[in-house]
């Protein structure tokens, strides 16, 4: 008895603007309640909306990054309903003429490999304020600081077939929007919110009744919530019950989805074009300029790292995940380091600092210099890793640090011969075994020379001397 799951996602992202969508109030987070407000976002009598140019530009960039077609003429519409944190009694959004439509993203499905997910539309709208239900007993407290903040709503087609695909879609879209510079896309800070729609059906049947799942505060929780809802719907259908169109909320502590108190009738939003706002007309030339201004997007960057820089797929994929990491990597390569080596260092030693502090403490040129003294044999790779740890807190050059820490490799053949001779003299049994054919002991001898030299001997220099002496 196979069931097919059908999932669509609605993402709301907040474009990174300084002011609100329809007024000049600040969008700063965490202010005292009802202080980032003005007549427009308070819905005072006589106030009128004016449209934020940067929100339009960022919405356009986001839509282009998602492969959408930009409408040259889109229309703002009123979505009419009553709620305490909706000051005008309507939300200014877009309805049948949204900013962008018909996009596609390629995601890596855990079940199906690379697949295309359609983006039905991207439109601009304003956020509502915040209603707090637990602050005052029996009452709702309303803060309108957030009212009027710009939002881009991104609606996918019903193309995902598993909770894992939903998560992959979210990761991909988030990455694209961060690359395009549209938004911080932080669920913790509320600049990215997700609502999910899920239905199940027998393969080949028409679409089942879909439910809406809300209140998921991380991508992992989206996946968990959709697992729970899929399970719930399948159980109902297998019991012979019908799925009703409800909205459910996810409880992260229990992992359960629960239907909200069902609403008496579904909303009739009575959309009509907002008479306070003429149509948003975008010239083809301006749209083309935004497209040209898009930075290199993840898929193209990964291909370039693999095809042009010759990196293995794992390295390429990992480096592109955050634009800042990729930028650092490229700066290190530009400073003269061979790509795979640069990748090793960036994904290895350098990531510790990035993860902890959110930036790379070691300038690309200094890392390149460090790699240089490994390449030219001045220090061993081991020693270099130690030096790297010091670079963040010191102004000294890697070479100076190597000297100060006594890490410069000894390559002088006289010194090396001396140590080799000492080691061979100290281990006659092993020498005999080696000469008897146990050539694996080379590693043992090299290790002993390193010990005797307190790590300073250049391993590459030891080998030929050792071989020569053992052949005697």
């Amino acid at each position, binding site marked *: 008895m196979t069931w097919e799951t059908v999932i669509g996602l609605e993402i709301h992202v907040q474009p990174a603007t300084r002011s609100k969508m329809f007024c000049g109030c*600040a969008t700063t987070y965490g202010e005292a309640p009802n202080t980032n*407000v003005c007549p427009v976002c308070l819905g005072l009598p006589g106030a009128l909306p004016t*449209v*934020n140019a940067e929100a339009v530009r960022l919405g356009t960039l986001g839509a282009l990054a998602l492969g959408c077609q930009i409408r040259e003429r889109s229309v703002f519409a009123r979505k009419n309903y009553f709620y*305490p944190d909706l000051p005008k009694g309507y939300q200014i959004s877009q309805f049948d003429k949204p900013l962008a439509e018909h996009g596609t993203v390629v995601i890596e499905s855990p079940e199906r490999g690379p697949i295309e997910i359609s983006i039905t539309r991207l439109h601009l709208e304003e956020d509502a304020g915040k209603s707090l239900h637990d602050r005052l007993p029996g009452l709702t*407290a309303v803060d309108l600081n957030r009212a009027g903040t710009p939002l881009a709503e991104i609606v996918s087609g019903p193309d995902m077939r598993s909770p894992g695909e939903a998560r992959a879609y979210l990761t991909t879209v988030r990455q694209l929007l961060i690359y395009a510079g549209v938004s911080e896309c932080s669920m913790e800070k509320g600049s990215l919110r997700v609502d999910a729609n899920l239905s199940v059906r027998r393969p080949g049947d028409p679409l089942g009744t879909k439910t809406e799942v809300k209140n998921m505060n991380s991508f992992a929780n989206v996946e968990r919530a959709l697992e729970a809802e899929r399970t719930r719907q399948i159980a109902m259908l297998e019991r012979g019950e019908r799925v009703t169109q409800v*909205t459910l909320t996810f409880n992260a502590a229990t992992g359960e989805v629960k239907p909200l108190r069902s609403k008496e009738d579904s909303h009739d939003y009575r959309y009509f074009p907002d008479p306070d706002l003429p*149509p948003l007309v975008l010239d083809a030339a301006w749209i083309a300029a935004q497209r040209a201004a898009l930075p290199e997007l993840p898929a193209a960057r990964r291909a370039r790292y693999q095809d042009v820089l010759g990196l293995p797929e794992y390295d390429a994929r990992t480096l592109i995940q955050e634009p800042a990491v990729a930028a650092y990597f490229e700066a290190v390569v530009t400073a003269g380091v061979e790509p795979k080596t640069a990748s090793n260092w960036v994904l290895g030693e350098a990531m510790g600092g990035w993860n902890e502090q959110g930036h790379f403490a070691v300038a690309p040129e200094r890392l390149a210099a460090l790699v240089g003294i490994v390449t030219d044999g001045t220090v061993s790779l081991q020693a270099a890793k130690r030096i790297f740890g010091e670079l963040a807190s010191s102004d000294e050059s890697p070479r100076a640090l190597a000297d100060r820490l006594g890490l410069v490799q000894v390559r002088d053949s006289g010194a090396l011969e001396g140590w080799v001779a000492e080691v061979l003299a100290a281990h006659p049994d092993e020498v005999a075994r080696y000469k008897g054919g146990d050539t694996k002991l080379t590693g043992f001898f090299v290790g002993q020379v390193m010990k005797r030299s307190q790590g300073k001997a250049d391993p590459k220099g030891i080998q030929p001397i050792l071989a020569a002496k053992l052949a005697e």
Partner: protein
Amino acid sequence: MKIGEAEVRHVARLAELAVAETDLPLLATQLEGIVTFVAQLDEASVPADSTAVAVGPERLTLREDVVNPIPMRHGPEAMAPVFIDGFFVVPKLGGMAEE
């Protein structure tokens, strides 16, 4: 078209407008009269590809993204019927509870 008490109740609910039961019959009659009157538009012949009228500018002028709020001589606390700790306050959601 016929507008009865059910239609009046429905739109009153959408508009969050309390209508006394005793007012329903008169309102239904009045609304029906108005709706019948405006339905004269059915006689107008509208071309299939007609667009809505455009009064005002043909395209939006966009506002630069700077923080520049319209100044107010007094804040929300001076106007709100109930204002506690910096918040507007309303009764609990009750039947309106959702997201």
